[in-house]
């Protein structure tokens, strides 16, 4: 058995990304994803928001396995640097355990481009809190194998279309909290928060590409719409530094804070 009682619960984000995973050795997860057209952004490669979601996806599952049998995990903090904005693919996502504490798990995650001689694409660290679900942690067959989708691939909408992102002000974008964006716990998937942060940064900078991200997940998004508002802090050789605050407007609370460096469009 793999995962949650309802095999489809919260799987839409993973299916959209098309990430497959296997446990190469204990607690070392290896994921693969194609550089699919629907994931590409203005820079030509996979959008940083999708890369972050891959980091969260593979790192989170690795963290969850490390938390067993005591509990399962939710992401609390994701940091990443993206150093390649165009990709040949396929992408390989390697997640390894850095630390397993009493209350949290830290995983290091790197993405490499197998079609570009294993060039580094992104490097990050995901921190997850260990929680004990009411029904206990999900069961997994080990070593773990997770296939993204079994049906034939179809043409998928681009990330902005899929999320239905809309500009609400000059410095803010938002999405509705659709069922497809929820994780197995029923709250907005952390990877979708990362995609929203990336799109907000791109929008506020007029087409910039996110190269550095820190996201603190402060509270769950349960109601929606979920809005990301950008404040520019300064500019440097490598781009603009932005503060992005994410709020669950329906719940009236801040749910995430991100600091983003955005390389500006030429």
């Amino acid at each position, binding site marked *: 058995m793999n995962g949650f009682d309802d095999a489809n619960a919260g799987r839409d984000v993973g299916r959209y990304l098309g990430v497959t995973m296997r446990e190469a050795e204990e607690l070392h997860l290896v994921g693969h994803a194609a550089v699919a057209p629907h994931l590409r952004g203005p820079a030509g490669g996979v959008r940083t928001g999708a890369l972050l979601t891959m980091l969260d996806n593979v790192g989170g599952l690795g963290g969850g396995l490390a938390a067993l049998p005591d509990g399962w995990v939710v992401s*609390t903090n994701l940091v990443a640097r993206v150093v390649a904005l165009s990709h040949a693919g396929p992408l390989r996502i390697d997640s390894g355990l850095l630390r397993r504490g009493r209350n949290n798990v830290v995983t290091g995650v790197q993405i490499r481009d197998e079609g570009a001689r294993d060039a580094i694409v992104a490097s990050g660290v995901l921190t997850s809190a260990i929680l004990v679900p009411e029904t206990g942690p999900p069961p997994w067959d080990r070593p773990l194998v997770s296939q993204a989708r079994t049906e034939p691939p179809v043409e998928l909408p681009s990330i902005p279309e899929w999320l239905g992102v809309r500009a609400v002000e000059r410095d803010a974008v938002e999405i509705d909290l659709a069922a497809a964006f929820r994780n197995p716990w029923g709250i907005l998937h952390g990877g979708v928060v990362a995609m929203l942060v990336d799109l907000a940064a791109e929008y506020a900078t007029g087409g910039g590409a996110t190269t550095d991200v820190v996201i603190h997940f402060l509270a769950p998004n349960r109601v929606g719409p979920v809005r990301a508002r950008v404040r520019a802090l300064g500019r*440097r050789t490598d781009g603009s530094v932005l503060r992005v605050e994410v709020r669950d407007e329906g719940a009236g609370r*801040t749910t995430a804070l991100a600091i983003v460096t955005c390389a500006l469009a030429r």
Partner: protein
Amino acid sequence: MTAVYPPEHHLLRDLRLSFDHDADGRRSRARMPIVGELCTDLGHARAGALATLVDVVGGGLAAGAAAPGWIATADLTLHLVGGARPGSVVEARAEVLRAGRTTVVIEVALADELDRGIGIATMSFAVLPRRDTNPEIDRVRDSPSTMSTQDSRLARPLLDELGVQVRDAERGVIDVAVVDWSRNSMGAMQGGIVAAVADVAAETALRAATTEPLVVTDLQVTYLGFGRVGPVRSAVEVLGTGVGHGSARVELVDAGAENRLMTVVHAAATRDLT
């Protein structure tokens, strides 16, 4: 028994920090006068020095927010957008974003005395059961306050004070001893100084890779374990470089404790902080 921290001759006194705190425990401010000893060869405050300021103000605020529990720093991030020159004073304005049962998250805005933005930082902490050896927070929450004495000051540049030894510039291998001057209240290398070691290691490797006078502007520090024995030893993987910037991944180990992995850091460097 309650520990007295910091001791008489200590980094946190020599930085001449001063503090004040809001009564509700949600906000604190710390000020650090910028002196030449804290600066890079480009003439503005080193990211690692500012990370130390962030660590101290954020740690104090988080400890209060976690009371009666105690805290362990999980991560610290810093992004600089302006250079702080000698003679200026950087104020770190810390605010509690989340104070939960198991974690505390802090945001810190950095500005100079003209209210010019210098950068932004975040920290998160794991909440732990209090031990007898943890400092009493009430004692350090008197407001306004300072840990410095009349004689406190940096006698030498920060990197000399830390005794940084570069072993392999291209690979960013440096050694830094763990000494009483830079220990935290748990007896290990202070978290801001850990960030400073990573700062120097990344700068060293990125300068070797680019031949440009890059200085570190961003640090994403993930703390995994303490550096108690020393020397703390770095290794750097240069992730990428471009004209005027570069980024790197740094690992720090406690070489005296069977090379136990202490910290993973992602760093970015540029040449244009003004």
